[in-house]
């Protein structure tokens, strides 16, 4: 039996799955000050009559880190950076305690200016003096050569042993120094509180005699064992929309193109599944004001929900962005889209008489009848969602490309399905689908699709390998692994087989070794380095990944 629990902003949802069928669900209100309690009560409700021995897998998705960072409750982190030549580092806004150090490494990992160790020493002393307990040390191109970051860490630890140090290349090895710096800071900021939470969960679950492995859902729709996830605490941010998208993936036929519409009270989250693969945000998630390297689905949050405030503006209606409170037909103070849909019999919740009253009031301002007013509200909501959805497809089509074949092969694609999930009123889904000439789907268990998605998501991982045979070394972006390459004839075949070996090692570190064989090479490229008129070496890039997908135990499939 599989368990999925999604601790969302409003409710905490749980499902119990047996042989591809959802056999129990629960929904409890989320109390942000007592997340663990919410989670456990949702869990207790679905396993009440089940022997704990039958449970094979528990997957959690939680807003813990999202809230921690949004509310500024993560630990303060100082930053020591070695920016080298390029943008003026004074222009970065990476927090209030940033120390800029002289020294530089270039794009091929060569030291081009020695590290100013005295500056690092002074910075560490000052940071400690100001009461910080945590610091991130980041070099530009530090992922291609770790020595400066390692020296900085040693100096900081020697100077101020009370400081906890995170190195940039361990948080992310991808290109983009400001994003890597932010990712490293967030990682160290969230780590202690996350570890504490993970420990509590482990204890609480085992107190129910559940011995099944516990996984946590990441923003890229993949799972990680709870025990190793403490090394990747910020990856768990924004797992809610990822859970819903994975739910849609589980509940629709494989390989199709779908728009995921998760309508809540105040906002609607939109995501895309293209040919069966959820679309990723191209560089990484934005966390508060920080751009990061955290892999996440490309989710568009639209300020429009069932409880959005509806106002007349001339003879047009405006929707949101604020929440009006509950819908008028449910005893709320103002007209909402829910009232409009209730009056038009698109949904069946709330009092129809109250919905009519709300729309009649709105109609007075618009100079029309209650029915016409309701139609205007629904039309406006559909238009808004359509324009956002079309914008997402357009943005995908217009994503930059750097190779001739990429420009030639990218075609326009259109959605086959519009899938409505979540707790909100789903009456808009068929209307949006019709306008997109797609099939509107509201799956069975749509209100707990998020928990289903969590329950059946498989682990994901990526490996970005670069070898520089002229300099004789390779790097792995994900965890900063480096090593020597002695073979001067090291070519594409060797690079790919080395990447395959390395991804098994990385999977082992992440506790998902059994999935490593599912990784595929997504990109492999060779650059001959020509110096003078002869080839002096090669740069080889290989990318591998396990994309977001479903575990084989899930046989529920989409039967639409």
């Amino acid at each position: 039996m599989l368990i999925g629990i999604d601790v969302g902003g409003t409710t905490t949802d749980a499902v119990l799955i047996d042989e591809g069928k959802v056999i129990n669900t629960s929904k409890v209100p989320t109390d942000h000050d007592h997340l663990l309690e919410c989670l456990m009560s949702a869990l207790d409700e679905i396993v009440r009559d089940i022997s704990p021995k039958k449970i094979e897998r528990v997957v959690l998705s939680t807003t813990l880190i999202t809230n921690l960072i949004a509310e500024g409750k993560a630990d303060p982190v100082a930053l020591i950076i070695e920016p080298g030549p390029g943008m003026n580092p004074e222009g970065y806004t990476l927090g209030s305690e940033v120390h800029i150090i002289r020294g530089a490494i270039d794009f091929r990992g060569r030291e081009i200016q020695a590290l100013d160790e005295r500056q690092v020493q002074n910075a560490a002393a000052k940071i400690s003096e100001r009461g910080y307990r945590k610091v991130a040390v980041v070099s530009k191109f530090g992922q291609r050569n770790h020595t400066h970051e390692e020296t900085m860490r040693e100096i900081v630890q020697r100077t101020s042993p009370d400081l906890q140090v995170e190195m940039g290349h361990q948080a992310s090895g991808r290109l983009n120094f400001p994003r890597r710096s932010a990712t490293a800071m967030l990682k160290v900021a969230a780590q202690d509180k996350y570890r504490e939470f993970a420990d509590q969960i482990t204890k609480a679950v085992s107190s129910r005699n559940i011995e099944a492995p516990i996984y946590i859902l990441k923003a890229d729709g993949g799972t990680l064992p709870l025990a190793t996830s403490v090394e990747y605490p910020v990856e768990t941010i924004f797992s809610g929309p990822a859970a819903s998208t994975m739910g849609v993936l589980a509940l629709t036929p494989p390989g199709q193109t779908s728009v995921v519409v998760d309508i809540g009270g105040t906002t609607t989250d939109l995501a895309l599944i293209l040919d069966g693969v959820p679309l990723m945000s191209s560089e990484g998630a934005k966390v508060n004001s920080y751009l990061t390297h955290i892999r996440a689905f490309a989710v568009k949050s639209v300020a429009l929900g069932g409880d959005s405030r509806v106002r007349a503006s001339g003879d047009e209606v405006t929707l949101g962005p604020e929440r009006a409170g509950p819908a008028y037909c449910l005893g709320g103070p103002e007209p909402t889209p829910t009232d409009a849909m209730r009056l038009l019999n698109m949904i069946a919740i709330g009092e129809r008489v109250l919905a009519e009253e709300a729309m009649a009031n709105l109609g007075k301002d618009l100079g029309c009848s209650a029915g016409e007013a309701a139609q205007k509200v629904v039309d406006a909501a559909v238009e808004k969602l359509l324009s956002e959805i079309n914008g997402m497809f357009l943005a995908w089509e217009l994503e930059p490309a750097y190779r001739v074949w990429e420009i030639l092969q990218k075609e326009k694609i259109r959605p086959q399905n519009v899938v409505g999930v979540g707790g909100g009123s789903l009456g808009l889904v068929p209307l949006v689908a019709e306008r997109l000439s797609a099939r509107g789907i509201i799956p069975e268990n749509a209100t707990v699709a998020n928990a289903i998605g969590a329950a059946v998501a498989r682990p994901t991982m990526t490996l970005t390998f670069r070898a520089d045979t002229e300099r004789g070394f390779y790097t792995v972006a994900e965890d900063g692994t480096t090593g020597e390459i002695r073979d001067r004839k090291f070519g594409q075949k060797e690079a790919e087989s080395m990447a395959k070996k390395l991804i098994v090692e990385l999977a082992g570190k992440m506790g998902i070794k059994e999935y490593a064989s599912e990784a595929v090479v997504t990109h492999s490229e060779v650059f001959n380095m020509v110096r003078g008129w002869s080839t002096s070496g090669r740069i080889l890039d290989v990318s591998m990944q396990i994309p977001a997908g479903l575990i084989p135990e899930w046989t529920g499939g989409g039967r639409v």
Partner: protein
Amino acid sequence: MTTLREENRGRARKMGLIFFPAFDWAITPTHPEREERLLYTKDQIFEEGLMDLPEVEEYKPRLAELKDIARVHFCIPSVESLVTEAHLIAAGSTLVLADAYMKKDITNAFALVRPPGHHSMRVAHGNRGFCNVNNEAIMVEYIRRKYGIRRVAIIDTDVHHGDGTQEIFYHDPDVLFISFHQDGRTLYPGSGFVDEQGGPKAIGRTINIPLPPETPDEGILYVLEELVLPILKDFRPQLVVNSAGQDNHYTDPLANMRFSAQGYAKLNEMLAPDIAVLEGGYAIETALPYVDCGIILAMAGLDYSNVREPDFVPGKFTMSRTMEANIVGTVEYLQGIWEARDELTETAVERAGPFFRRRKNIFYDTDGIQEKQTESVKMCPDKSCPGYMTIDTDAVRGYGMSDSGFGVFVPLFACKRCREEAREEYEAHKTDSRYNYVYFQDKNSDNFRLYSTRMHNERVY
């Protein structure tokens, strides 16, 4: 997060950027114009996070239409045979940015794309100086056609003379072409001397500034300040294009100048081009990553003072007295030409008679083609008409095969009489068996035709 601090935001604006390194295209595996060329530039600009800056908007390239190429070039035997998809994408990138710029979605733009184009002339038999088709010319004619602007300035800042662009606009008084470059006596393509000043009706609209080898930042910025900027102020262009080669750099393996990344950034700040298009530059590790970073920051209105090559220190290169005197002399001479351009035009037109004729020998270094051309321009009595032009071309490839053609060109702002005469010339030559191909390029009606005298068929672009 990489946003600027509030107090520095004053000069902020939005630049459009297309980065198209064509990682899967090369002339040949060891050619300077190969996959690796922009690899380290990508590393640097991605590591800087320049694409995340609110001042930078990254665009996706598209393919140019064959008609966009035919609007500028007489491709022999046809457009399709001369361009690869990579060429269409490089040219198409400039068109994407041109549209965004003209619609005011962006304040300026940089097409950081390859393959380059500034050695491609109006008649194109093959690849010259790593170029098949001229990206800047294709963009300029696209903009003039689509958006109805007339006066354009193209400043060629590549170390090599922009002979292709010069040739395409040589008789066009509305396109000011200025090229500074390493003296043609010491570098490919061996042209770009001060006496190449434009056709009789466009004297002074071509300005060539040959510079002595080893000219440093100081010399180039002097030329910019004393000569280029004042001429631009007089000319009042509606569009300024930087044909932005990066091979004036002190580490470039194919040239001998002493320009730095700081110099390039400063140049773009002072010149403030509306659209810059990458041309040459083959110091792929020691120059390009830093030069491109500097240009992007300068065009985005951001601080570029921290951009420097690893071995660069201010004052690394200085000018000798002789070099300085040489540059000052060139600048003063060209100032004189610019001042006297109207009288010089009048005299030249008078001297030319009813038609201006010149013969040219053009060598295609990359493809080993030797071309002979005779160009003939009508000295139209209508002062505002540049006159139609015909070109007789004959090219011999290395193995002795010969391709001959006759082209008739009608400028965008041609008078009615010239348009009619040109059309007659085209029709008359369709039965002229001396030529394999007859070409008609009417920019005024945006109509481009290619007639094969062997196959007796006409292709309309």
